[in-house]
């Protein structure tokens, strides 16, 4: 069984939903406290959404120094799948495992709504097997979800069909060059069953698990 770690920082609040969605897809998903410095035995790792370390200073800025992040960086370097969802995406950017950063949404609204996405690049572990142009429907829940590529060459793998928060290149998900580290701003785990409104998130989480099993 594919064994994946779901990291819990102080202030994370999506770890249970994320672990449940992954378990429903057949994974052995374990919640791992952020002080853990060893992720040996895990096939993949997820940094779920929330407000790690209160999001003080900047979103993700302090979480980057949690002991677990050395192990996350080691997994990223070894080519293992590393997925950041929402706040987890912000943490991966602050940690330098993904390019770019985040600022407040255009229009300064906290956005809590369903968004339509389009697959832009199937070369990442999150979008493998999804044809470019495929449409997905996921919930977005963020204030600082406005992705800024800066001077970096961000590899955008999912885009917002209407760029609701002002992100550079309408980026909803960004990968590293190798494609094994991906951050996604909307929440695939909250679109993991029809009764939630959409099961499209399972396509992404399934790709993550498939990459983890490989």
């Amino acid at each position, binding site marked *: 069984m594919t064994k994946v770690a779901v990291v819990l920082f102080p202030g994370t609040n999506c770890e249970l939903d994320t672990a449940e969605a992954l378990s429903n897809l057949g994974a052995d998903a374990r919640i791992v406290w952020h002080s853990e410095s060893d992720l040996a035995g895990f096939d993949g790792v997820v940094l779920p959404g929330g407000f790690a370390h209160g999001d003080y*200073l*900047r979103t993700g*800025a*302090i979480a980057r*120094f949690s002991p677990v992040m050395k192990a996350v960086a080691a997994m990223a370097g070894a080519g293992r799948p590393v997925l950041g969802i929402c706040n987890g995406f912000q943490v991966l*950017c*602050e940690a330098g495992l993904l*390019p*770019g*950063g985040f*600022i*407040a*949404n*255009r*229009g*300064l609204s906290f956005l809590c709504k369903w968004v339509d996405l389009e697959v832009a690049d199937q070369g990442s572990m999150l979008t493998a097997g999804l044809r470019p142009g495929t449409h997905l429907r996921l919930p977005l829940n963020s204030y600082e979800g*406005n992705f*800024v590529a*800066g*001077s*970096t060459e961000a590899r955008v793998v999912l885009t917002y069909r209407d760029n609701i928060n*002002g992100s550079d290149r309408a980026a909803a998900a960004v990968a590293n060059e190798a494609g094994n580290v991906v951050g996604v701003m909307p929440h695939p785990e909250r679109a993991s069953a029809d009764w939630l409104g959409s099961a499209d998130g399972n396509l992404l989480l399934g790709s993550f698990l498939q990459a983890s099993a490989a």
Partner: protein
Amino acid sequence: MAITRRPEIADPEGATVKKALTDLGYNEVRTVRFDRAITLDIEEDDASRARDRAVEMCNRLLVNPVLEDYTVEVEA
């Protein structure tokens, strides 16, 4: 430490406040930028060493170089 948003990065707070000022009739306002100041009380007698440490803190934690620039000022 004065931490400023890099000029090429959008400032949604600044843009919104500029609009509010314009609505109040302050048409002379060209731009509004939201910068941050962080003040540290450091136990260190040597000003240049205090500055070096503060710069290191900016580079490691306090500033995100993708989004921000900074200057450090030391007062005795």
